[in-house]
């Protein structure tokens, strides 16, 4: 167990170090996130009161779109110079690689969620009514989508059509997460009267199942 975690840590820190060097998140994905919010603003052309109502949903759609980019990037890093084969040859536990890569995406998503929250406060006039719920729901959802994304990233890799295949595989599976997270943020941002904590509980369950299944299935998927 200890070696599994330390191997996962090795992979996660490697991915984050690559991100720190290449700055894909800060230079490309983060601006894209803001752009999505802006596009919604243009398209909906609504007053701030209406936008505030929709803000939670728009927020999480933006997160999902950024997730696609983050997963693609995570996968591309390994296929660039066939480092993926190297990971197999090094004898790393596949579950560790899965956890490490998910963790790296998780961290990146947290940064994006922070940025997007600032975005909806500025552009849609939202405000965080329940900080604790905002934080927990944000963490749990990020975990759920990061792990699912990493699993499906592996499913779609190596086929030459990853860019177009990943969305159609991943997004329907995450549709329930989108619904749950939106309800949780409806509560946290005071946009609607729902029980955000109940939804957060469901999201947590999804995250646990996704992490476990992912860790178990990842090995079978990357082997020949």
């Amino acid at each position: 167990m200890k070696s599994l975690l330390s191997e996962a840590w090795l992979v996660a820190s490697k991915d984050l170090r690559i991100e720190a060097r290449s700055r894909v998140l800060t230079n490309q994905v983060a601006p894209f996130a803001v752009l999505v919010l802006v596009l919604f603003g243009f398209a909906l052309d609504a007053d701030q009161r209406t936008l505030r109502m929709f803000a939670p949903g728009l927020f999480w759609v933006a997160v999902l779109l950024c997730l696609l980019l983050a997963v693609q990037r995570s996968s591309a890093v390994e296929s660039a110079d066939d480092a993926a084969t190297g990971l197999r040859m090094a004898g790393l536990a596949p579950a560790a690689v899965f956890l490490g890569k998910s963790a790296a995406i998780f961290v990146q998503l947290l940064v994006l969620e922070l940025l997007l929250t600032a975005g909806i406060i500025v552009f849609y006039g939202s405000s965080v009514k329940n900080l604790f719920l905002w934080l927990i729901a944000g963490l749990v959802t990020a975990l759920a989508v990061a792990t699912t994304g990493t699993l499906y990233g592996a499913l779609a890799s190596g086929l030459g059509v990853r860019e177009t295949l990943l969305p159609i595989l991943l997004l329907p599976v995450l549709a329930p997460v989108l619904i749950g997270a939106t309800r949780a943020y409806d509560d946290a941002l005071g946009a609607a009267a729902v029980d955000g904590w109940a939804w957060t509980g469901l999201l947590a369950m999804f995250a646990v199942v996704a992490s476990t299944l992912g860790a178990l299935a990842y090995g079978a998927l990357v082997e020949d």
Partner: protein
Amino acid sequence: MVALLGRFPALAGASLLVEAGETVLLQGPNGAGKTTLLRLCAGLVRPESGQAQVLGHDLSVDGRAVRRQVAMLGHATGLYEDLSVAENVSFWAQAAGLGKSLAAQRATGALARMGLDERLLSLPVSRLSAGQRRRASLAALAVRRPQLWLLDEPHAGLDQTGRNVVDELISDAVAAGATVLVASHELERVRSLNPRVVTVAGGLIVKDTGGPK
């Protein structure tokens, strides 16, 4: 063994037995199946039929345990472009199970033997030439001190210095008692090591100067 790449039978019935410590040269025309044979030995490809045993382990049963003892250099370098040479070597050494300090210790030595100038070590790999990358890749593998080396055309694309470095690596490995399988078109260079020569063509072994006695 028959090994398939998708529907294409890269290996159509090859059979090979290599003793520990042997040095083997795989030669043959392009597309003969040399790469697939090496990948099979690395445990990266599962034979469609037949059995593959490496270092006493049946690969279909226990692939991972063997892998840390095997170093494979393929056509790709397997390095992370955005990280520096030093960071890559450190990562790959730790990934193979070496502790951080041991990895660091051995890394400096391995990089020096590969003839990589110290100034290059902190550069991101993307700034290196193909030859330098190949040498960095070999250094990353050498740190592990593997028992089995699988080299797929290691001299290709290297300049004279690079080729000399590769030759030294192979002789070092042989001297250390490792088993070395080299697929190469640089026949003269490798022949100087007096290896067993196996000729591969059409997915089969057509000639073998060694083999079971």
